[in-house]
């Protein structure tokens, strides 16, 4: 049932997939990455390339120390510049043209198996309940954590997305290729530096990233974020929009800390474009 030359497609994709190792302060990221252009530009997930530096291992075994050149924590994308040319880059395809049922392949390094390939079909394309309004390529394909940051490609081997997470029911979510192109044009976006989860009344801070604007502004684990620049925030999208609108300026965050009768306020200075997380 597989198309002609499928073996070659898989092999080409494998040569354009790298392993990414990163880690600072106890946090460790290990996953995959995609050689996006032959000048050494590698795309991976922001949650794979933690911190400022990463170690990249090519399919031929070469390993290269690299720095994170740009990061967008909300899009969960990062760019690594390898400083090596003549690499085998992938071709990409606009993910909006994908139809449900199309065959897709993923290459990655799940559970330590380097260059492992899995196949599946496109399930749908669009937003996912509980994950805000952003679009995802949703595929019925079996992925493991080590696939994060690696390519999801169509039957001709053209990359349609970056494998990012698996949701309930085993559906794999990939960041659409067109979002990657936008990110490469736009570069880093400022980040607040918090990991949050929506609750009844606002966004609950689960983690504050060390040395981030949020930490510098003394936000703490357990703070309940309820407004940004005077507007209520109810979703991650609301917070993301407020951050985008305040780039390079002050963002006023209203929050509760224990006492729900007293809304506190803090001004956060957002960096222009440094490599921060979340």
């Amino acid at each position, binding site marked *: 049932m597989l198309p002609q030359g499928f073996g070659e497609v898989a092999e080409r994709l494998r040569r354009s997939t790298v392993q990414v190792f990163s880690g600072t302060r106890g946090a460790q990221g290990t996953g995959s990455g995609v050689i996006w252009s032959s000048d050494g530009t590698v795309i991976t997930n922001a949650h794979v390339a933690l911190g400022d530096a990463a170690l990249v291992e090519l399919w031929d075994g070469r390993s290269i120390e690299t720095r994170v050149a740009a990061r967008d924590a909300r899009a969960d994308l990062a760019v690594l510049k390898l400083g090596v040319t003549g690499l085998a880059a992938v071709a990409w395809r606009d993910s909006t043209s994908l139809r449900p049922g199309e065959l897709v392949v993923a290459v990655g390094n799940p559970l330590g198996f380097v260059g492992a390939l899995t196949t599946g079909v496109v399930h749908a394309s669009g937003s996912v309940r509980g994950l805000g309004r952003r679009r995802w390529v949703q595929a019925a394909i079996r992925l493991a954590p080590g696939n994060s940051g690696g390519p999801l490609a169509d039957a001709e081997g053209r990359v349609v997305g970056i494998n990012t997470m698996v949701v309930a029911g085993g559906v794999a979510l990939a960041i659409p290729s067109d979002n990657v192109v936008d990110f490469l044009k736009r570069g880093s976006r400022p980040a607040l530096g918090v990991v949050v*989860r929506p609750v*009844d009344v606002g966004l609950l801070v689960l*983690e504050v990233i060390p040395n981030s604007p949020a930490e510098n502004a003394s936000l*703490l684990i357990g703070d309940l974020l309820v407004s940004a620049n005077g507007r209520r925030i109810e979703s991650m999208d609301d917070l993301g929009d407020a951050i985008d609108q305040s780039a390079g300026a002050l963002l006023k965050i209203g929050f509760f800390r224990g006492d729900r009768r007293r809304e506190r306020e803090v001004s956060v200075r957002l960096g222009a474009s440094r490599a921060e997380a979340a």
Partner: protein
Amino acid sequence: MSNPLVSFSEELASTVARAGQSVVAVHARSRFDSSGVHWSPGVVVTADHALRRDEDIRITAPDGSRLNAELVGRDPGTDLAVLRAQGLTAAVAEKAEKTPAPGSVILAVGRFKDSASAAFGVLSSVSGPSQTWRGGKLDQVVRVDVALHPAASGGAIVDAEGKLVGIATPVLSRVAVFAIPPVTVQRVVETLLAHGRIPRGYLGVGLQPVAIPEHLKSTLKLPGAAGLIVISADPDAPAGQAGVTIGDVLVALGGATIQRPEDVQQVLDSGSVGKKLSARLLRGGKLLDVDVTVGERPRKG
């Protein structure tokens, strides 16, 4: 000179006959009957999963007589159920004083139709207190290697002397038959006789594990690197009444360090209902102690 194999066989048969004097057949499902153990006068312990109905339960005594039994209560967590059988004259099971060591010979003794039923095996392992996947608390996890016939579920696992090592259940593990030890059975029997159910403690909060930032862990001298953050709190439930609110990070409860959801469950399951427990919370970078009076988890339906 007698053949040692013959005498071993005879020993086994008389052990089964002796132990079988306190094992009854339980008729409460259509395909297979199950078994039960005469625990204390008029009280029979059986396997909860094999009781498919709450009424119209009959038992067959070792002497072949049939009696009606009344369901006292169930504890799905330990797969035990307690029946009351007025007029049961069978012998009460003699409990082993200690659990035999791994490798010891055991027998599964049930009652099937008009006969005692037996299976031969060894005790595979004995380990410390644990929680079952169904949420019940076992004082000891006793695994036995024995081919348990469905009709022997709820029957006795006995040692070489015919003394009760535990109640046989195949549903607490996918790979082994468990013998629920007498100390656990006694606790469940007492609670079910007194309340008709096992009350489970309830705080009324939704919790999620979080890492505690290194600087807070060291300045506050916290024992654990993780806690449970409150993501929802019912204001009318015990924790809400005590002032616990969304964003609080629970780090200790009733003196026990809390790092995982199971830690809370363990505190709540050990007869906590109605007790006042001190909850240590991390709020706004500081520690705060509040007293929570544990409630009883509302029952389903």
